[in-house]
């Protein structure tokens, strides 16, 4: 828990006149579950996209595994991306491939393993993500929302990344599935020694799973720390977020469990 695996410093992003990030700095340590919270449209997902080099910030620096990633060439970017897994908000599963093929695709592209072994490793990831084996041969449009998220997670895990990005993993799930997902994230963290960056609105996920949370708003990091520390913050936006009716319920439940 000592070494920073991801450092963002002085990051600025704007779309036209709208400033999304105004000199944001963050540090994420190896092995932690780091959550990024904030109201809709505050640039949480944009931040993830910038780290994965899907979008360019205006200025600033992003260092992952101790290496500057902004301005990497194509080959180096590929190399960097192989060490990371990303789960998109709506799954982004390839609709022409079934679940097993979806998960096996990164393996097929980037390893020289045999078909059979790829299939077995993909099956492991699918089981790890908590999908029943019967889902393997289904196509994305035959899956429920929760199963699609799990399949997307399995694909993100395919290359055994050290760093995993999850964009709104529990959005649109029923409470039961969302609880299941919380457990899954904790299980993966324990068993695979992953560092996870989660963008989420889900207060339960923030309380139960996240080691540290950064709260974005107005283009700045308004607060950063454990949920306990954040919930004692005096910033009006953060207070509103955590002390609204929903925030209170989640908080009380978390207190009871401690």
């Amino acid at each position, binding site marked *: 828990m000592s070494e920073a695996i991801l450092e963002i410093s002085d990051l600025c992003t704007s779309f036209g006149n709208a400033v999304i990030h105004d000199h944001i700095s963050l540090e994420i340590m190896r092995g932690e579950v780091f959550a990024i919270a904030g109201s809709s449209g505050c640039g949480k997902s944009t931040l993830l996209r910038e780290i994965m080099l899907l979008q360019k910030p205006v200025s600033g620096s992003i260092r992952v595994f101790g290496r500057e990633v902004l301005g990497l060439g194509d080959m180096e970017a590929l190399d960097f991306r192989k060490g990371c897994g990303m789960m998109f908000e709506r799954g982004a599963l390839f*609709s*022409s491939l079934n679940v097993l093929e979806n998960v096996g695709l990164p*393996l097929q592209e980037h*390893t*020289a*393993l*045999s078909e059979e*072994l790829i*299939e*077995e*490793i993909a*099956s*492991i*990831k699918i*089981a*790890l993500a908590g999908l029943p*084996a*019967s889902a*393997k*041969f289904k*196509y*994305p*449009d*035959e899956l429920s929302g929760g199963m699609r998220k799990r399949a997307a997670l399995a694909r993100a*895990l395919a*290359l*055994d990344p050290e760093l995993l990005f999850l964009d709104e993993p529990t959005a649109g799930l029923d409470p039961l599935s969302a609880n299941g997902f919380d457990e899954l994230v904790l299980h993966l963290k324990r*068993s*695979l*020694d992953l560092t996870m960056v989660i963008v989420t609105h889900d207060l339960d996920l923030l309380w139960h799973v996240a080691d540290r949370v950064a709260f974005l708003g107005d283009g700045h990091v308004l607060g950063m720390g454990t949920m306990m520390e954040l919930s004692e913050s005096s910033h009006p936006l953060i207070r509103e977020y955590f002390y609204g009716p929903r925030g209170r319920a989640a908080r009380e439940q978390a207190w009871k469990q401690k």
Partner: protein
Amino acid sequence: MQARIEIVGSEIRMAGEWTISGVADLEGKLAGLPLSGATSVVAQDIEAMDTAGAWLFHRALQGHALGIAGLKPGHAALVEMVASLDLAERTELQSRGFLEKVGMMGWRLLSQLEGMLSFIGEVAIALVHAITNPGRLRWKPIWHNLQHTGFDALPIAGLLSFLMGIVIAYQGAEQLARYGANIFVVNLVGLSMLRELGPLLTAIIVAGRSGSAFTAQISTMKVTEEVDAMRTIGISPMDQLVLPKIIALLITLPLLTVYADIMGVLGGMIMASFDLGVSYTDFIDRFGSSIRLSAFLVGVGKAPVFAAIIAVVGCFQGFRVEGSADSVGRQTTKSVVQSIFLVIVADAIFSVIFSLVQL
């Protein structure tokens, strides 16, 4: 550092990085290794392990009762976890026999035909409704479709017909000049453009341009549940999406055909004066006397039928989309292929009918 495995005496020694990037050639090596002679595993030199490595480790030692020494606790936990996962045996998808495939294909074709017929029925009912109360017609999408299927297609339809006119005149020129029958180029260009090529060419262009757009639009809206949303709001997709397209195309395709006729004859006329020395005045004189009005009417009369085919097939295939983005592309291809096919079949039927009634 690559993953390594070797047998020393009765010991299996494992070392290196048992990770996804390190195990590439381990798989082949493991297959040829005589593990049955060994009694223990020494694993303390394994530096790193991930799930892929853990699976290989587990798979290699499966079925052998061996003492494992020196495996780091973290790695042992990983191997244990991987071993405990329930991976159902791979189920081979059974391949279908030839007869079954043919049967399935026939069945699909039949069900598509049935769907098409019932769709035509629905369209006909909606069209009758719309005609009996025109106030219910949705004019905005009709205007929109008129512009996109008609006005926007003018340049391409005009250019292609013009070129077609040039080609016909040029190809005919050599043959006609041989008999000194230069002036008959007017009949050649006039009849072939007005009766056949004008309507057919325009229909094929519009099928490629607008038929595909209809299918893509409707199928995308269906995949994103916009069509269902429309239904829940109480807007019939038939009224909002299908009828405006059909009505607009029924208007624009005949107009485009007239335009294509003019451009095609113009192309022929220019080529005739260049290549055969038939002056513009001679051409126009001859055109008036030798091409009967019926040739033009026969051509333009086919256009509404072609329009109905293109619009109905385009919309029908759009509604048959299933689930995914992949399917949108497939339906669009199907729509264009089918509508062009049906347009040509209809044209052939028209030829037979016209020759029977001697038009």
